[in-house]
């Protein structure tokens, strides 16, 4: 099996569909983790196959110069999540405290719910909530998925320079909100009884 993802995608695009399965088997865990961090584990279980199908359908759009397919796959996963949130929000079951789909394309409410579980870090939660959605998306792709700014640019479909500036702004915003070197303290909006 070729080491670089570009070769696998090229093989798939030329009719060797099994190569694409190899590619997705290689990155399946990472894509599932991306989905789980933002939509919860159950949503990730259900949406993973949709990401795979969308990726296969879009295989000819892959820039074969990209050695790592993860950013491209994250971008597809992001679109699948946005559709999931948008559709789910139409028939919102109500509630704002747990991992319900949000009312917009912004996955923040789900991320918020995730952080909510760790009630010991409300300051971190508030600081993240203050970031612009685009800045937050870049920060979480770097912090949670381990992408470089250039890879984030691929995932979000933005210029690399924009990704870098958003990351800089997000980090600065977090430091400003939290105070340089401060550690998260006890709960605020949710108080431990």
């Amino acid at each position, binding site marked *: 099996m070729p080491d670089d993802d570009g070769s696998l995608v090229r093989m798939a695009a030329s009719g060797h569909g099994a190569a694409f399965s190899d590619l997705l088997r290689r990155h399946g865990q990472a894509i599932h983790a991306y989905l789980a961090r933002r939509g919860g584990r159950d949503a990730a279980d259900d949406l993973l196959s*949709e990401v795979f199908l969308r990726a296969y359908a879009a295989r000819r759009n892959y820039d074969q110069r990209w050695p790592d397919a993860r950013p491209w796959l994250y971008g597809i996963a992001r679109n699948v999540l946005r559709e999931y949130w948008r559709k789910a929000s139409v028939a919102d079951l*109500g509630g704002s405290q*747990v991992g319900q789909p949000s009312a917009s394309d912004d996955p923040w409410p789900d991320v918020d719910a995730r952080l909510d579980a760790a009630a010991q870090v409300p300051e971190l939660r508030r600081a993240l909530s203050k970031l612009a959605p685009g800045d937050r998306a870049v920060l979480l792709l770097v912090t949670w998925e381990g992408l470089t700014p250039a890879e984030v640019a691929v995932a979000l479909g933005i210029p690399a320079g924009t990704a870098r500036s958003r990351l800089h702004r997000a980090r600065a915003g977090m430091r400003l909100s939290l105070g340089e070197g401060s550690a998260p303290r006890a709960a605020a909006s949710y108080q431990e009884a």
Partner: protein
Amino acid sequence: MDALTVLGQLGEVKPADPAVLDAALERLEAAIGQDTRLPRTTARAVRRRPWLVTTAVAAVAVSAAAAAFVAVTLLDRPAVPARSAGAGPATHDKSVTGPAGFAGVTSSGPRAIAAVLTAFSTNADDILAVTKTMRGDFGTLGKTTSWLWPVQGARGSTVRTRTLTLTLGGARQMGQWLTSTVSTVTQSAADGTCAAIFARPRILSSSATGVPGTLTAVNYLRHWWARGAVTVQAATVPSAAALRACLTSGQWSVTGRGVLHGTRVVELATPGGGERLWVSAATFLPVRLVSSGPHVDTISFAFRFLPPTAANEALLATPSPPAGFRRLRY
């Protein structure tokens, strides 16, 4: 440890179940017509949601509905059989006629709806159990079961509700037990929209106008619970009044008669078939309601009217805090 390091740790997740990956790959392979020699035996043995990997749309719908119904049934099986049947497609049987005393009802939509409302009154002391399932392009998007007791209380009387939100896999996600009083606010909560009824109670800020009550919440996934006095958005309080309002707001006509899970039913529909309702031909209690919209394919409701026996009342009993769960305050 700085905040960004903490943020990174919060992003740690458990690896996906290999069966989930296998199922996703199988679905992909079905699409591309390839066989990459997966460990199919393992995948098939432990796969959690088989309807997501089948390519037949009809099979998807049947599997999802069955799984939702089975999940709820396993979680909270009523001690006494319900007075109306569960979810599922009706088989049409044109020989069925209306119940005695309802002459002409089964050929007139408005009269049928009037009979339904009368049935609510005659079963006012029952416990109403409603399973709400939302389905979209990706399969089931959400499931909630609500219990409400009594079905129709006098103004100022106590009404108890329980709402159980299930994960897409059918596991318990969130339970909410709300005790409030019947008020004029809840009586007009539905806004005439059937799709929106029987949502999950949503807490408002203390200054907002809503329904005051005592809410106990248990988050089974995140292992916390909370209990306290809250104000709940009126439209999100599970309410038979909301169901009555949505039924009376629609222009229903009788479209058929048949048998649904052994229960003879009358089928009604709104113009264009956007909403369809099946009511028991014997009691005229609603059995099933399906609402279709442009964004979410189907929202279905399965209704059960349970007699208020001690065992059934226990379905609404506020639970003790689960061991090991952290308590949060609203």
